[in-house]
């Protein structure tokens, strides 16, 4: 995660987003929500990184913090080697052309008072691209490309179904020809028959435009389908990441295993007894000490997993944070690299 690959378009290192929790009349700080707590990953040009995890794990906050839609607490986000967290004003605006987002809720993310044409054109206007006529022409082409037809430009979002609205959201994202799009649960709210249409559209656009995606989702089957690599988040941290095939065939982290096992498989012949994970995702206000997953982990080792945070180790492109896995790999004589040592992660345990 921390070793820079050549050609990485977006490089996130040790990204943190903490929210102060204020309570009472004087709004005194009563703790910190560690929504994103030291997340590192890279996305290459034209590549898709899937980011999965359960609700509250920080995947959405990660997507927003790296675009600076939420100001990160600390960390570094390099786009083409330039740290967007240090850029301001004009430079940041210029870079934002390359970075777009498609949101989950196609009902809440489009301004109901603007026509579809105006919604899609807005980005072009802000970045002062082309003449009025050229912009209109561009909008018409993009609306056509996402399967809506140029005639939709004069209509309003409420006239469209959920799937069509998501096409509008995609048109808005691609009109500036970005190089990177954060898709935050972009198809989760859609019906299955419509979901497949949008997934296909995203895949086609990637081929045509060479755009890279950070595909944030809780649906693992979708993530597997779309992603080149997958990172699994738990309570503000990435616990495992690997090329897609590798992650689904050989998950290492106990949480990833449980998560994959929990997916209901649409095949009644494969009904089986599963690893049912006990408990719920704990709160990010007061995350468990040591490995954050240890209270729900079936293989946690007392005196180790509940006291020391595991370091990131890598076997090839497969990275994992787990004491037990590290131990098993050592005993099997597998060579692995240590990406992040304990000392760099000596976070205050309060």
């Amino acid at each position, binding site marked *: 995660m921390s070793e820079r690959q050549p050609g990485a378009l977006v490089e996130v290192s040790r990204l943190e987003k903490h929210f102060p929790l204020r309570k009472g009349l004087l709004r005194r700080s009563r703790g910190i929500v560690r929504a994103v707590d030291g997340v590192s990953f890279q996305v290459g040009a034209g590549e898709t990184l899937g980011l999965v995890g*359960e*609700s509250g794990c920080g995947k959405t906050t990660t997507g927003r913090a790296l675009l600076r839609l939420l100001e990160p607490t600390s960390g570094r986000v390099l786009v083409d080697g330039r740290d967007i967290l240090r850029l301001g004003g004009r430079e940041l605006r210029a870079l934002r052309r390359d970075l777009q987002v498609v949101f989950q809720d196609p009902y809440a993310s489009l301004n109901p008072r603007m026509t579809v044409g105006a919604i899609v054109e807005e980005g072009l206007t802000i970045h002062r691209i082309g003449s009025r006529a050229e912009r209109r022409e561009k909008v018409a082409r993009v609306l056509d490309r996402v399967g809506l037809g140029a005639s939709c430009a004069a209509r309003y979002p409420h006239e469209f*179904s959920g*799937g*069509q609205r998501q096409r509008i959201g995609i048109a808005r994202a691609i009109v500036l020809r970005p190089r990177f799009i954060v898709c935050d649960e972009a198809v989760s709210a859609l*019906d*299955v*028959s*419509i*979901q*497949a*249409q949008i*997934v*296909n559209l995203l*895949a086609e656009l990637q081929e045509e435009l060479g755009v890279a995606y950070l595909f944030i989702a*809780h649906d*693992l*089957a*979708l993530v*597997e*389908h779309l992603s080149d690599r997958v990172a699994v988040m738990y309570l503000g941290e990435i616990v495992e990441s690997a090329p*897609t*095939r590798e992650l*689904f065939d050989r998950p290492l982290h106990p949480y990833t295993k*449980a*998560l*994959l*096992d*929990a*997916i*209901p*498989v*649409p*095949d*009644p*012949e*494969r*009904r089986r007894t*599963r690893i*049912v*994970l*006990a408990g*719920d*995702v704990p709160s990010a206000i007061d995350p468990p000490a040591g490995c954050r997953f240890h209270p729900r982990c079936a293989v946690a080792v007392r005196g180790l997993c509940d006291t020391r945070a595991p370091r990131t180790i890598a076997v090839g492109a497969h990275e994992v944070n787990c004491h037990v896995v590290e131990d098993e790999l050592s005993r099997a004589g597998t060579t692995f690299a240590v990406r992040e040592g304990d000392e760099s992660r000596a976070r205050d345990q309060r």
Partner: protein
Amino acid sequence: MTAAGANAIVSTVSSDDEPLLSVRGLSTSFFTAAGAVRAVDEVSFDIPRAKTVALVGESGCGKSVTALSILRLITPPGRIVAGEVRFAGQDLLAIRDRELRAVRGNRIAMVFQEPSTSLNPVLTVGYQIAESLRVHRGVSRKEARARAIELLRRVRVPSPEERVDAYPHQLSGGMRQRVMIAIALSCDPELLIADEPTTALDVTVQAQILELLRELQASSGMSILLITHDFGVVAEVADEVVVMYASRVVERAAVRELFARPLHPYTRALFESLPRVGSARERRLRAIPGVVPSPLDHPTGCRFHPRCTRVVDACRAFEPRLREWRPDHRAACDRIESA
């Protein structure tokens, strides 16, 4: 527990092979300013004893309205316009309100999708579990509280003696859904209607709830009507499946039969459009073209014809009836080559 159990057995007068519930020709319309919307259109299916029937379809297909109609929970401008719902020998659509109240929440219980909106935020969960016991069974406060603790334990809520006094906002989504199930189970229902009970939950919590429903069914012998849009969930828990599209039933079969041999072009297309974990990564999913039709404006003939790849002229003119193509496997399509 024993009193309720005995009660359930006494009321079971009909023979064993007869389904617990059978829905025949059920139609429900909403009379809106934009016109009458037929949300459920001549729907028929059976729920056998101790089995799980899944009612599947995409949003707006009428699956939730079907469930609400079974319990006569349709409010104006909606109205059940035709049909019969036979439950243990009586037609629920014909009996008096007072008789219906003895069934609703008692012999037939319901769990909804959003546990956060279906629980009362200002009452403790213990009070809410006890409420139906006090209404239907007339037990004392003290006894009801003891029963509430026992029920929380049965749905695997940790430290039930403490949680009984908790308010809904103090519990996680998964815990709230367990409380909803505890309320539903309080009177030992013969039928549990669960409308998207795991849709709002994370996969690991969903797995816990599905496992719980399976265990409860095995121990109590209740039947479950599970409403869902997720074919993964269907494959995990259902015995029989009813597929709905645009207010109508398009296919009905046992779960293995349906997944092995889907007959209706809609069901087949849905299966093909699903991304599956473990399948080779194909670049494209087989999407179903077009959009789910609005119930205000159903297509003529077969309602799926505008999106169907096998459409012929007859499909646009005539609405196909549900026909038995294989033993206990029915589909509403006239273009199925004899299966």
